[in-house]
């Protein structure tokens, strides 16, 4: 019932805010979402080994208009902290997970990042606010075209996108400081590991379209060793009860 009332209120507020100038619309909802993520991260700190995410990640979350990346009918829900359907059997990820995944890449201003699975384009937009170049590949034609249109309209000039097979990465732009694989893959494609710079990181969410079970970080060390880290993005301790 609480969910029903809050959703109805949100729809009413957004309907009312439609009368406001376009720039102001959704701003307060986005700020509230950022506050929610900050609080969630604090509670999950034991698994993330930090109390707060990189401020640049949170700035990007506060800046990128998520409502521009969702279908019209989903706009009223665009600042709820949950995944939303975007058509073509795909989803826009939960903002909380997007923030954590971006932070796990440890992005720096001059970095070049590759994303496999553009989807709505929201993750690429967040990255583009932080790093200098974002390359993104989408396998579903209609989705890729839609994301490209979003990038143009919202003036994300440092995002290069294309439609096609992400398995071989983007060789002409390699190597990358970071790679995000949001497309479902049965394994980590060897060419992507090759295109990762020594010291670079790859982040992979594992689960179904709506339910990310855990996050995997693949690290390519400077000595050539490749390791993975698995992170449970939820406050969930201890594993044995009765304590």
């Amino acid at each position, binding site marked *: 019932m609480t969910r029903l009332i809050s959703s109805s209120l949100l729809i009413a507020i957004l309907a009312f805010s439609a009368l406001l100038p376009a720039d102001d619309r959704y701003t307060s909802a986005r700020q509230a979402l950022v506050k929610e993520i900050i609080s969630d991260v604090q509670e999950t700190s034991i698994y993330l080994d930090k109390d707060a995410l990189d401020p640049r990640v949170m700035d990007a979350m506060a800046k990128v208009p998520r409502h521009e990346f969702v279908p019209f009918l989903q706009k009223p829900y665009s600042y709820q902290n*949950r995944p939303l359907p975007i058509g073509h059997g795909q989803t826009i990820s939960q903002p909380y997970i997007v923030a954590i995944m971006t932070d796990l890449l440890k992005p720096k201003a001059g970095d070049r990042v590759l994303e496999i699975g553009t989807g709505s384009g929201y993750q690429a937009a967040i990255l583009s606010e932080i790093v200098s170049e974002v390359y993104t590949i989408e396998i579903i034609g209609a989705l890729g075209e839609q994301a490209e249109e979003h990038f143009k309209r919202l003036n994300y000039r440092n995002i290069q996108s294309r439609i096609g097979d992400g398995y071989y990465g983007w060789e002409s732009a390699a190597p990358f400081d970071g790679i995000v694989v949001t497309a479902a893959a049965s*394994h980590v494609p060897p060419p992507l590991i090759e295109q990762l710079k020594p010291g670079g990181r790859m982040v992979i969410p*594992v689960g179904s379209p709506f339910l990310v079970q855990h996050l995997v970080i693949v690290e390519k060390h400077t000595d050539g060793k490749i390791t993975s880290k698995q992170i449970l993005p939820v406050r969930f301790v201890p594993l044995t009860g009765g304590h």
Partner: protein
Amino acid sequence: MDNTGGNIPRFSIALISATALCYEILLARLFAIIQWHHFAYMIISLALLGYGVSGAFLSVFAERLRNHFAATFIVNILLFGLALPACFLLAQHIPFNAEEILWDWRQQVRLFGIYLLLMLPFFFAANAIGLSMMVMGGKISRIYAADMMGAGIGSALVIALLFYLMPNQVLQVLAVMAAAAACAAWIELRLPRNKYTFALAIALLLPVAIPNQWLELSMSPYKGLQQLLRIDGTQTIKTLSSPLGLVHVVESKIIPLRHAPGLSLYATIEPPPQLAVFSDGDNMTVINKAVANMEQLVYFDQQTSAAPYHLLNANTVAILGAGTGNDVLQALYHEIPDIHAVELNPQITGLLTGEFAEYSGNLYLKPQVQIHVAEARGFIASSRQHYDVIQIAMLDAFGASSAGLYALSESYLYTTEAFQDYLNHLTPNGFLSITRWVKLPPRDNLKMFATALQALENLKVEHPEKHLLLVRSWQTATLLVKKSELTGSDIEKIKSFCTNLGFDTAYYPGIEATEANRFNILREPVFFQATTALAGDTGAAFTRQYKFNIAPATDDRPYFFNFFKWGLLSELIALKDQGGIPLVEWGYMVLIATLIQAVAASAILILLPLIFSRKNLIPKDRYTAIGLLYFFSLGLAFLFIEVAFIQKFVLFLHHPLYAIAVTLAAFLLFAGMGSHYSKHLQTRFGYSSSVRTAITGIIVLGIFYTMGLGTLFSLLLPSTIFIKIPVTLFIIAPLAFFMGMPFPLALSTISESVPALVPWVWGVNGCASVISAILAMILAMHFGFTVVIVSALMLYLAAMLLFAGFPRANSVSR
């Protein structure tokens, strides 16, 4: 009262029941295809409350309907036939997405809409049968007999139909069957031939005219098949259907599939071209294209499942759940000369021996490979051979597995008794190898480990912990159980295998924490901590305290995939916006949600007629209360026994389809015969003695079977299905025969003393049946199927005592 001219529309009633039961099973198939099977279970359980709604409806409108029996009976059958395809076709277009249900209230509204739509066909079918019982009170035992026997035939018929037709075509057949039931009723009730007769005959043909595009199944866009088909250049090149599943073969012409779960991060070669094979639109596996050089298959050596081949020079390997042959190819890559591939679904093996044999390089026709179309557990149990490696393939997709969607599925593949069977069929230094997805926090890998320990203990192995190895990548983990104790050389080999491919040894005898978390790093080495605790003295305490249920499954409680513990629920729900929802074990939650909804709806349906029926029509006295308890107990008990025995026979017949078809059909047919005979019994001995005799028979046989069936099944284990099926029928016949009596005997008593109660208790029994199937599963998960049977016997005993308090009709028939 009886305005039918004394004719019971037996054939018509049997046909309605057969169609309704076919529809129930068909819906399970259809929803497993368009959604996921756990929600299918919830939707169908709730839809069956249509029987309860009918009871309430008939109670309130009894008087008005009674005077127009023939017309009302036929109209309800026709509406049943109409609603049968229409309601499903409408329901599948409701955009319900199970994964959003805790986030988005609109999904709950949509789910409710689906319930309401699917209740309608059952409501109309139940109206027709309930109305007959109400109007022909003196012939209830015969009506009930026709109802049960029709359902029995239906349970076998639908399996046959699903072998020959696509599931959506079966919908048309069922609509024709319903129309035929209406025609039969017209004849049986001896109604005059007129323009309506002609209209009825036309109605028979209408379902055939449903346009094909209306019948197309609307699969969830989030299922694997739908996701793949969105990629340019992909298309379905083959579709096959059977009761075991809807199989799609998909080719991807532009972008290769490259399916290789669990591949090492150090792998450098991509898989060869592949065809995707989906079962019910999910659980993708692949047919690999033949390669010119086996070195192109090196990736099969770079998965955790390759571990056993690095530990011994195997000659004979059994692969359980061989599917489209990936594990067979892995064995061939390791030059195994004698490979036994066991697969349940003949349509899957048929793909590799028929149309795609050449594509696969005649994989299943190679001299090294022997194909066995059989259920895996049954194959091993009846095999006289010993194997160097018994490998259980990864049969489920990660998404469904990680969300706990299989919690409701019984699996006799992963029980302690099954592990004992496997170990007994290994050569002295052989390995059992089981690969599963890695989940965080760990669940199935640990349950598997605990199950192996328990099996070794049961086999009186001195140091079970010295027989186990667990290796893991970031994606998969492989458990190895050696028949003999592991040697130092085994441990060195596995360490080397892991180091070369970037895998971690999560457990081996004597492992140190520092060795367990080197390549695929977890914040805490939880696999190591858990496995060493399980293998040590504190195993039982650890299992009790662990947040998920990792206690071994047994043949009596075969729910390996149920990891749910109540302590988890509130914590995860509270964390739903903080990443907690994906950890919810959906299967069990759905079961509980189904039970709560069914109990709430049943309470309303049972109470409504008491409130709204005309004054004094349903007396609010102790007789009504006794009637309520009696019929509720019978509803619970009948299904408890049926559900529990189906499970017992799954293990005996070793084939889920045969077991369900044979057991269900036998129960219903023999119960129908019992019902028919109950009239004679009552005429001779009166109601009370007849009920006492029937229930005593049920209790005596129930106790006898609970104690003796295990021994009988062990004796007959190597027998063929042609011996096992007659034995099954012979065992079920007397029990079901007695079980068919208490309901019609009591209903006949009531129809003589308080006839207005007949439709109401019919509804009560319907509600109880729905609750019973759900409750039986919950009881079985917690206490095992033996407890379900014992509970049923106690309910029957309670019913016998309650019958003594029934309103007294003549103790001997009129």
